[in-house]
Every structure is written in structure tokens, then in C-alpha cells.
């Protein structure tokens, strides 16, 4: 009966010990006087333990006189007694009140501003701009208008597509989404050149407009002119500027060099262990357990315990535990074929990420060289791809 227990708690009750010879008479008199007793328990031949409400307890006095038994209070229980105790300790109450107030006031300030989602726009720039608009650490959270700042941010930074400010307690989280700049499209009427995007050997030229200045087999490097938009003919007096475009397919090479030592030195723990404990305060290090390490060859495992005050703010006090395990060197000879396969897989995987999707792989060259303990592998992938890129033509007007 939780409800009954709660009710009793709020009304307050006392646990009493009743001492006397005729205790049944006492109980009967209580019933008669309408005093509610509960949890009556026989303690010994002459004593009973019972619970009674505060009001009932006062009425008990008369009964005890009549039936000649003694009552003593074993414990006072319930809210009224607790409240009375607290009332006497005024400073405790004021202290509790002020600490609550302090928490409420302190938590209404913004303590840290975090920005997520920026890749191209610098964080400092955003933080400075936000500070000017009134959102910075130390500002009251109720004094800033977040929606207005969001809009202001959007007008200030054109690179941003969306700004969302969220207050999480004392921590302001600003999420930004940057606009993805579309590739520069040159208007069809604007004269332009076609230049090389990558190094390569020209394989095929399709000049749809303009004059190609390279031929098949030419070696071009990044930025070289491929199709010119400045058309000069004998019949023309001044050059004609056109919007050059076309596809230039070239053989490009992607390569990577990897090297692996064939013998690996592995350290194995012998089971001997030695640990050192240190206390670091600022720059000072105090070793308070353990001295010189008794092993020459060991594996070191570090454990640092710090006290974190708040997020990234740490106390400059650290406890460092260094565990030294004695170790033996074990040389291990790796299987050359296995290493080769592993290197190959890794290299191909890395190269594939660089190669554009539309490129056509024509050849793969793998070259392994074994010099002593070192195995070197060179992986080259030959690709035919379009390297054309349009670039605006600067016309010097005479």
C-alpha cells in the first residue's frame, strides 16, 4: 500500500515503544478512543512496538495514565518532522536557494560557440562575424535573437546556403551548409581556349570549334593550350575570336610507389612487468612510484588520467602510469608472394580513387624490385581520358 505509506509519511508518524503489563487493554482502549495504531509488534513480554500518527500520539497520553504503561518514542518519521528539522537550519536553506539561483543564472549564459559544417569558409571568420552580431561566449542566451542572426549570416556570407543556430544549454551549436559552387560555365558566345587539365600524351583530337594546336603523340603538361579560340587565316586581317570547344583524349599515367621491409621485427612480451607512476603539474613531473626501468628492451604502454573540468578545458594536473613490459625481439621473414599481392591490392585501390569514372584503362604496369631486405613496387595505370578544359580568352583590345 504505497498510497497509505505516502499518506502516513506526509502526515507524520512516530514509532513508539509501549511498556507495561496489560498491553491488550491498552490496545483496546486505543480502539475505543479511535486512535489508529498500525504495525503493532510484540518485542518482549512487557513491550510492544507500534506506529501512531502525530495527532493520535497526543491522545495516547491520557490512556497511558489510565492503564499504567509507559510510552517512549523510538523514532520520529515523516514530512512534518523533517520540515521542522530543516526550519532550524536557516543557513542550509538559504545556501540551497542561492546555489539553485546560481545554477539558473549561470546556465543562462553561452559559454562556447561551435561551428560545424564549414569546409571552405574559415571558422575564425564566422566566429568573428557572429561575435559582431552578438553571439559570442559570455552573452546571455535570452538576449540574442537567433533567427535574426541566421538571416544576417546568410547575407554576410554568400558562400553559405543555410545557417542553423541551436542552443543546447550553455553551448551554441552553429551548423552551416556551404553552397556547392557550380563549375564555371562559359557562355557560348564568349571566346575561349581549351587547355589541358592534366599531363598526358595526346591520343585523339576532336576540335568542334577553334583550331587545334597539338597533334597526336604530343606530350602536354597541365595548363598547355590545346585548342585555340583565336582563329587566324590569311584571308582575315585581324584574328577571329571564337568559342573553342572539343574533346582531347590523352594517355595519362597514374602511378604509385610502395615499399615494404621483408623482415619484420616483432616484440614479444616475456611476462615481466614494471610500472611507474607520475604526477604532472603543468611542466613539472613528479615520480612517486618506481625508479629506473630494469629492462633494456621493453614495450611501453602509457596511460594518462586527467581531470576534465568542462568539455575541452582540463586541469593541468595529470596522473601518468607507465607500464613497461620486458620484450624479446623476434625476427620474422615475410612471404614475398603474399606481400606482393597485398601491395598490389592496396596500390590498385588507392589509384582507382584518383582515376575519373569516364576514363578508359588501357594498361597496367607493375614492376617489383628487390634490393636486399626492401621490396619496392611501382604500379602504373595507363588511362585514356578527356583532358579538355575551357578557359576564357583574354582579348587585348587594341
Amino acid at each position, binding site marked *: 500500500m504505497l498510497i497509505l505509506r505516502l499518506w502516513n509519511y506526509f502526515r507524520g508518524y512516530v514509532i513508539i515503544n509501549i511498556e507495561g503489563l496489560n498491553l491488550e487493554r491498552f490496545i483496546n482502549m486505543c480502539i475505543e478512543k479511535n486512535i489508529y495504531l498500525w*504495525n503493532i509488534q510484540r518485542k518482549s513480554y512487557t513491550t510492544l512496538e507500534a506506529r501512531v500518527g502525530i495527532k493520535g500520539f497526543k491522545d495516547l497520553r491520557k490512556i497511558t495514565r489510565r492503564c499504567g504503561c509507559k510510552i517512549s518514542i523510538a523514532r520520529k518519521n515523516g514530512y512534518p518532522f523533517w520540515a521542522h528539522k530543516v526550519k532550524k537550519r536557516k543557513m542550509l536553506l538559504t545556501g540551497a536557494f542561492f546555489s539553485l539561483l546560481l545554477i539558473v543564472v549561470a546556465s543562462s549564459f553561452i559559454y562556447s560557440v561551435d561551428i560545424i559544417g564549414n569546409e571552405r569558409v574559415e571558422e575564425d571568420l564566422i566566429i568573428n562575424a557572429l561575435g559582431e552580431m552578438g553571439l559570442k561566449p559570455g552573452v546571455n542566451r535570452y538576449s540574442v535573437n537567433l533567427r535574426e542572426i541566421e538571416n544576417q549570416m546568410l547575407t554576410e556570407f554568400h558562400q553559405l546556403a543555410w545557417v542553423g543556430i541551436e542552443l543546447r544549454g550553455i553551448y551554441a551549436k552553429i551548423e552551416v551548409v556551404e553552397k556547392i559552387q557550380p563549375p564555371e560555365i562559359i557562355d557560348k558566345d564568349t571566346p575561349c581556349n581549351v587547355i589541358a587539365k592534366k599531363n598526358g600524351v595526346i591520343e585523339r583530337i576532336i576540335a568542334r570549334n577553334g583550331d587545334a594546336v597539338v597533334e597526336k603523340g604530343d606530350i602536354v603538361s597541365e595548363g598547355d593550350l590545346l585548342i585555340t579560340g583565336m582563329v587566324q587565316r590569311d584571308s582575315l586581317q585581324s584574328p577571329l575570336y571564337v568559342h573553342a570547344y572539343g574533346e582531347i583524349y590523352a594517355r595519362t599515367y597514374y602511378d604509385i610507389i610502395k615499399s615494404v621491409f621483408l623482415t619484420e621485427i616483432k616484440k614479444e612480451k616475456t611476462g615481466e612487468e614494471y610500472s611507474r607512476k607520475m604526477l604532472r603539474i603543468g611542466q613539472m613531473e613528479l615520480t612517486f612510484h618506481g625508479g629506473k626501468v630494469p629492462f633494456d628492451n621493453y614495450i611501453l604502454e602509457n596511460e594518462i588520467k586527467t581531470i576534465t573540468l568542462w568539455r575541452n578545458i582540463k586541469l593541468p594536473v595529470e596522473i601518468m602510469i607507465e607500464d613497461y613490459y620486458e620484450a624479446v625481439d623476434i625476427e620474422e621473414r615475410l612471404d614475398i608472394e603474399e606481400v606482393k599481392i597485398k601491395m598490389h591490392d592496396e596500390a590498385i585501390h588507392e589509384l582507382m580513387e584518383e582515376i575519373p569514372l569516364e576514363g578508359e584503362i588501357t594498361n597496367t604496369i607493375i614492376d617489383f624490385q628487390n634490393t636486399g631486405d626492401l621490396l619496392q613496387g611501382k604500379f602504373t595505370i595507363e588511362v585514356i581520358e578527356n583532358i579538355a578544359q575551357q578557359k576564357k580568352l583574354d582579348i587585348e583590345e587594341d
Partner: protein
Amino acid sequence: MKKTEEIKKTIADILELPQDIVLDLPKITMVGNLQLYVENHKGIVEYSSNRVRIFTKCGVLRVIGKNLLLKNIVLEEIVIVGEIREVEFDD
């Protein structure tokens, strides 16, 4: 006295009235051997942790068991909690 009792009993029988009300008898309810409710008692005669005697209209009700505790005691009702072994009426 005996006569009036008998008349009451007959009337209760005929009218199908609950006898505990008409005859002022105790109503005893048990929950397993854990709890015993006695309604309409006339007071407690003896209480110790293994024996409780309660005065009722039809004699003394004796409850024997272990760790008996008077959970609740008011004018109308007594609740005994504990390990009850025997319940019997003494004259």
C-alpha cells in the same frame, strides 16, 4: 435472550439477509496463511508474536502462528499478518 437470537436467525434465513449483520457475528477472511482479516470484533484479549486472541460475539477467536503482527487495528477490523497455523474458536 436465547429466544430472540433464534427468532433473528429464522428471520435472516427467511429473508436471506447476511447473517453477520443481523446476528452481529464476526466475518473472518484469510489470504492463504499470510493474512487474516477479522471484521466486527469486540476487542483484543491477548497478543504475542505467536498467539493472538480476539474477543467476538461467538466466543474468543484464537490465532496461532509465527511472527504475528497487528498490521492494522480499528474499531471494526483487525488485520493480522504473519505465518498463521491455526484459527479456532474457544468458548
